[in-house]
């Protein structure tokens, strides 16, 4: 990562998320069909398509205001459980950044931590409940650890991305205690949680952008 994490960087991240979500739409909806109601991919795709439009229209000038706009747009457009949850995550993350024009990895970590806290508070889900929290929480922890180990930004974000993916896959053997999947009781075991899977995509999109930055 030669240059800093400025507004353009976060715009690139969101664009990459939109691209990946569109590409993985069927897969995410398929995961949701198994233990939910077969709309997670469609929901996120609708949401990030709207987000791309909103960014183009408003063109926010700080990373913080950009992430807040992303969050508000998701809340306005997605619906379902993931709309308010993802929306809150981005909004809370954006809020902590205030109006800094450039974001350090330490600040990024604080932001993601705030996003996670927002999701936890709204959905009152703990790790192990088989939700997006099971991907986001380990990612935040990994980022923190990487910082302590003095890894460089791209590496640190890579570690977070890896942790999110592992966390998402770790939801497969879990029995859901939150969201629709909880209605299946024991039958929710053996399937990856769609929201955890999409969260892993979101963090890996961050890594993709970071490495080419």
């Amino acid at each position, binding site marked *: 990562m030669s240059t800093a994490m400025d507004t353009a960087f976060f715009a690139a991240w969101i664009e990459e998320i939109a691209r990946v979500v569109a590409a993985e739409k069927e897969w995410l909806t398929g995961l949701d069909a198994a233990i939910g109601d077969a709309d997670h991919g*469609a929901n996120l795709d609708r949401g990030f398509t709207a987000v791309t439009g909103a960014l183009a229209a408003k063109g926010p000038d700080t990373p913080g205001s950009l992430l807040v706009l992303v969050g508000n747009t998701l809340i*306005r457009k997605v*619906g379902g459980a993931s709309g308010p949850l993802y929306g809150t995550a981005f909004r809370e993350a954006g809020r902590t950044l205030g109006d800094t024009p450039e974001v350090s990895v330490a600040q990024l970590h604080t932001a993601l931590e705030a996003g996670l806290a927002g999701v936890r508070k709204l*959905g009152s889900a703990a790790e192990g409940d088989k939700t997006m929290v099971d991907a986001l929480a380990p990612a935040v922890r990994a980022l923190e650890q990487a910082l302590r180990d003095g890894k460089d930004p791209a590496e640190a974000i890579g570690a977070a991305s890896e942790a999110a993916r592992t966390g998402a896959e770790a939801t497969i053997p879990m029995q859901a205690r939150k969201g629709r999947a909880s209605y299946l009781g024991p*039958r929710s075991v053996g399937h990856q949680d769609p929201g955890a899977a999409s969260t892993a995509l979101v963090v890996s999109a961050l890594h993709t952008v970071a490495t080419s930055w």
Partner: protein
Amino acid sequence: MKKLINDVESVVPDALRGLAAAHPGLRVDVDNQIVFRASGPRPGKVGLVSGGGSGHEPLHAGFVGYGMLDAACAGEIFTSPVPDQMIEATTAVDGGAGVLHIVKNYTGDVLNFRMAAELSGEEGVRVESVLVDDDVAVRDSLYTAGRRGTGATLFVEKIAGALAETGAPLPEVARVAREVNARSRSFGVALSPCTTPAAGRPTFDLSDTEIELGIGIHGEPGRTRSAMRPARELVHLAMDAIHEDLPISGDTLVMVNGMGGTPLIELYIAYAAVVEHLAEKGARAARNLVGNYVTSLDMQGFSITVCRLNEELTRLWDAPVETSALRWGR
């Protein structure tokens, strides 16, 4: 997938356009996906707003009109609406007496309605929310999402709506709505999955001899898979699950609800078994509904909802209602 649609993307707005054209008594905001009474808010009357994912028709839009809802927000198929819609509907139907949100207990619906209630409050509208969670297939617990809201939603909307028409204050309307929910239980059985336009294929596979017990209304599999049985046995199984949770006795309001793809003749066969079963329990169906009311797209199957009536609820159930899907007394 073969569906009578124009485009997977335009299912909900296209249907809302048809609804608007079919029912002059409704005002439909197609862009915001909100269905209102054409007559607008009545000063001093508590407004009733509900909504949820589409695919459950006639729920909710089919229950907008005199004696029931003032507005219904339609989300995408099986996806709860967004706060903006709910805020728009809430402020529009407020006649000064406040607005009741009738919310089916699903994480998405709960979170979006919660945000909408907060923001509407900030805009000066008094809002109370009632959660519907009648599905006994889901074992309730503090650590889960809790029970699903299914058939009882119709009972809550009808009975709270009837009380609201009398000019009763918001806390009263909320009280009776909660009482209906507390006295109602449901259980659903699927003979086939459904196909959402977005997914394009059945939400699960089921052989010609299998069924799903304890399903919800979003095409999800049930709590358990079982062998197909005669209608009478399936009905007894559902009634027992309900009875185990809330003992059935005395006068009841019973709905035998089709999931969307099951013909009416089969629903009447199920209702005959329900009445047999009630008699065995020394209870009776003082009121009933048999038909497709809270559906899951083209799913084949049925759900049974039982509400233990009292004099007040019976009177409010009998009160006139004039909506596109439920109508009597005018």
